[in-house]
Every structure is written in C-alpha cells, then in structure tokens.
C-alpha cells in the first residue's frame, strides 16, 4: 500500500532535517550539515513493512515554490494522503498581503487535487522561543492557521528537533495513515489485560514512532511516548555506531519492570509491569506467546 506524503514549507524551515531524523537515523546535531533541498527530493520509506510512504520533500526556495503551483501542480498535489506544512516559528508571518500566500496556495491545490488528504501544520523550531512563551505563541499561530484553512480541518503541532515533540507530531501523522489501527488497538488492549501489564506500547521498528498503545493504569506524563521514542532511538543509534545491533532490553527496579522486545517483523513492543509477584520470565513468555497473533493481525492489512 503506497501513501503519498507531501512535506512543504519555506526554505530553511526544517523539513529535510525532520525527515532525516525520523527516517534516516540522523541525530539532531547532524542536521546542521544539510544543505538546501533542490526542487523535490523523493524518498521512499517502508513503514510497518507493507506501508510505503512516498515522502515528497519539496524544496522551499521561492523559485521552486512557484513551479509547484504552476507547471507541476497536478503532479505534486494529486493523490496525496497527507500534506505536512512546516512553519518556522521565528518567521513572523501574518495575514498581511504576501505572507501565508504559499500556504494558502498549497491548501487550494490540495483541496482541488486530493480533497481527502489530512493536513498537518508543524510550528517548528520551538526551541528558539523562551519556554514561558511557548504555549502562547503556539496557541496564537494555531488559531491563525485554523481560521485561514477553514473549511478544511487541520491539526497543529509545536515541534523542535531538539526534543521529543518531533516524535509526537510524526507519530500522530503516521498513525493517521495506518489502516485498521482500531483493530490493532483493541487487540493490544486485550494483550495488556491478560498480561496484567500497566502499559503496552507498539513502536515501528525503524523509526520508533508509536503506532499504538494500551494501558490499564493512568500515568501522569502525557509526553512519555515521545520521550521513550527519542531515548530508545538514540540508544539504538549509538549501538549501531559501536557495531552492535540493538535487539531487546529489560529495565527493572523496585517500582517496575519494563521490557522492550522485538515483536513482529516491523515492530517493537514495550511492556510495563509493576506487579512484583509476576516474574520477568512469565512476561517474556507471554510476549512470545502473543507474537504470532500480532504477526497475523499486522499482515492482514496487506490485503
């Protein structure tokens, strides 16, 4: 199954950096090496095995943008499942004439050519805003963009390559692309209950984006998923840099045990247990018992 994802925004807004971190195993520091994208860079990313993301990283320089809305318009905007528009938060844009015009043009083009596409707006480089102002700045931008895009519905995220917010945004984006996600979620919830785990999280293998999660206990940190994605991805990268291949991990202390295991061909699973009476080998046994079932559920989407 192929899904076309358009990544657009002004020159220097951070599109290629984001793509490199999520899909190409760059660490944030490496992205300073990236040069301006010339015209469109196409990357083909396999996600969850059978889902192919056709990522169109469209260079943001003005001359390229002009082409997108004239000669290349149909070629670019046709058959897209997702449009991701990246805004550099420091670029003071307002509804004044000339500003936001590229965004508006993209919206129109998408409405004309792929009316069903999901639209995501990423307010990027939030690390450059003082922490106490971030919420306000984001809320303001979000409101502006929402009213601009009416009647189309958009989803806004505040992101930065220097923290886990990037993972949150991209997890939600790819979540919207996975077919049958509700089925997977309900099965995961069942698994969580039988295992008597506090929480079970399913990650995509290459990107460590969260696909789904189930929980039996409330947890106060809502940002824990992206934090985990970030941490494990970094750990996985440093493992490969030293020549070893990350496979699984068990973290145990007096409060909990966390198991991160290779699950199906394209996923990792995190199981969080806090019951001291359950031994770790019992949990590992359950994970291997349920593995073939999930291999079947995830394969079924190919049909």
């Amino acid at each position, binding site marked *: 199954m192929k899904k076309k994802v358009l990544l657009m925004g002004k020159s220097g807004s951070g599109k290629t950096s984001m793509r490199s971190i999520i899909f190409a195993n760059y660490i944030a520091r490496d992205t300073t090496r990236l040069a301006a994208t010339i015209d469109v860079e196409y990357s083909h990313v396999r996600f969850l095995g059978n889902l192919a993301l056709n990522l169109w990283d469209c260079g943001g320089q003005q001359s390229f943008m002009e082409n997108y809305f004239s000669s290349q318009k149909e070629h670019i905007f046709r058959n897209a499942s997702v449009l991701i528009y990246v805004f550099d938060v420091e670029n003071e844009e307002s509804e004044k004439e000339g500003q936001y015009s590229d965004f508006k043009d993209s919206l129109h083009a998408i409405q004309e050519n792929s009316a069903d596409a999901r639209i995501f707006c990423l307010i990027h480089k939030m690390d450059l805003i003082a922490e106490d102002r971030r919420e306000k700045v984001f809320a303001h931008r979000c409101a502006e963009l929402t009213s601009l895009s009416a009647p189309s519905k958009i989803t806004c995220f505040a992101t930065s390559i220097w923290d886990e917010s990037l993972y949150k945004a991209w997890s939600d984006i790819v979540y919207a692309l996975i077919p049958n996600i509700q089925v997977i979620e309900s099965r995961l919830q069942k698994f969580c209950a039988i*295992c008597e785990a506090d929480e079970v999280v399913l990650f995509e293998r290459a990107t460590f984006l969260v696909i789904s999660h189930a929980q039996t206990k409330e947890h106060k940190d809502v940002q824990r998923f992206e934090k985990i994605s970030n941490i494990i991805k970094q750990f996985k990268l440093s493992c490969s840099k030293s020549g070893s291949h990350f496979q699984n991990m068990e973290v145990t202390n007096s409060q909990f045990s966390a198991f991160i295991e290779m699950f199906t061909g394209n996923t990792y699973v995190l199981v969080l247990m806090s019951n001291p009476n359950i031994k770790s080998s019992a949990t590992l046994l359950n994970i291997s018992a349920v593995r073939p079932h999930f291999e079947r559920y995830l394969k079924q989407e190919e049909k």
Partner: protein
Amino acid sequence: MLKATRLPEVLKQGNTSGVKGAILIQPDGSPLSSAGQENDSEAHQIVVTAIISNIWGLYNKENSELDYMIVDCEQGRVCATRVSKLVLCIYGDEKAQFGMLKAKAQLIREYLEGPLNEVYH
C-alpha cells in the same frame, strides 16, 4: 498466554505441614512463578532455583526419562518433578516427610499439566 498472578495461588496451596515453598522453573533455568513464605528473601528462591535446575539438568542429560528427584539436605528437603516443559520444585524443612513432598508435587503437577501444556504447545 499465561495469567501470571494465578500461578502463585495454586503453588501456595502446597505450603503446609513443613513445606516452605514451591517454584516453577523454565527450561532455561529462570523461575516462572513461585510461592514461598512471607519472610523468604528473593535471594533464597533464586538460589534454590539455580541449584535445583542445574542438578535436574545434569541428571536429565544422562537419563531423559527423569520423573522425580528427591534431595535430602542438612537443613531441608526438596522434591522436583517435570510439569509440561517446566520443572516444579517443592522444598521444605528437614521435618517434612519425603512421601508427603512427593504426593504434593504429584498433585500440583496433575493440576497444572493441562493448562501449562497449552501455553507451551
């Protein structure tokens, strides 16, 4: 799959008349489930698991039809038997009777054999 909190409840039922605890040991030597006394330390169970699974493994290599193994120690007595792919180990103090240890092991084994076979298919 295994509902891991049910097993200790089953194993605990044998802990009477001198029996101190019971452990289910996986083929790789790790404990799957156990039920002991409240003041039993985790370390004690780990030691019992390690030693019994090791001895069982050694005898099992010679004679793979090993059914029951009874060990008489200075300060306690152990009875081990096979349940599905696991080893069930019941240990008590030196006053526990061997026949009684064996009978308990047999009963728990019969009770758990079916369900555990399903988990390990």
